[in-house]
């Protein structure tokens, strides 16, 4: 039964590397404006990944101008994602980085993990 489901589901997007909570990433999203297509970059920290097979997602938080936090959830299988670049991995001790929402400025920094 599940094999039949897998037959129709889209394969995982190959341009998305393994993501861990706390990673600083840059997500390149294809945006369609009328007939033109362009790439939009969304830079931020991975808050969490939700793994549930075909519907798996990851959520990225970035702090926009005026210190307003913006969180965006992407589908791991989405063909709209051009690529994801992990710019830096950080030392984190939890799977869901919700505490980042309450921190601003220097308090929101994470310690870099070098042997990632």
């Amino acid at each position, binding site marked *: *039964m599940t094999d*039949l489901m897998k037959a*129709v589901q889209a394969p995982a997007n190959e341009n998305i590397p393994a993501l861990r909570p706390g990673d600083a990433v840059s997500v390149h999203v294809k945006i369609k404006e009328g007939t033109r297509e362009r790439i939009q970059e969304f830079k931020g920290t991975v808050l969490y990944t939700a793994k549930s097979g075909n519907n798996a997602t990851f959520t990225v938080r970035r702090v926009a101008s005026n210190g307003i936090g913006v969180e965006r959830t992407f589908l791991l299988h989405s063909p709209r994602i051009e690529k994801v670049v992990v710019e830096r991995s950080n030392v984190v001790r939890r799977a869901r980085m919700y505490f980042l929402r309450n921190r601003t400025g220097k308090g929101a920094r994470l310690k870099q993990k070098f042997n990632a």
Partner: protein
Amino acid sequence: MLKGLIGKKIGMTQIFDENGAAIPVTIIEAGPCYVTQVRTAEKEGYSSVQLGYGATKPQRLASGELGHLKKNNVPPVRVLREFRVKDPQVNEGDTVSVDLFAVGENVDVVGTSKGKGFAGAVKRYHFRGGPKTHGQSDRQRGPGSNSSTTTPGRVYKGSRRPGHMGDDRVTAQKLKVVLVDAERHLIGVRGAVPGSRGGIVMIREARKQ
């Protein structure tokens, strides 16, 4: 022309369209179905097609059913369903499969909804229930009053009361076909379909186009 199939609900998932948008789909394993009988206005008084689906063992069927299938050399099938068609353009003994349908068409899907058992009026008819506060202690999900007073002195028939819910024949109308896989006999429709996974469903051309 015959536009109907019997199938089995496999489950729901999401696929992406050409713009990359995720669409919710229900996957149905449909057909291949055998045409077990063609009913005509001359013989039976109305025209329809009876289809058979789902292989089974001959000892699971009554001898009458076996004889009915044997007439057209159809192997033993578990499910027989009838589709009203004006001009079927198929013959008894033929096989039909998912290529009857094409991506972009609208279909109705008939299934048996999940049984909910004996359900209260809040769940069954979306009654609001009683007040939670102001000293009310025993009527949070109650149905309230049933009727009026001495006139009419009875409860009208068909009043919405608690009772058995679900396990009904339900038609989901005008679902768009988003996927047809002739090789695996799969058909995908946008949105939900009545019944549990593994349930038998009928797919036919949408009545409201």
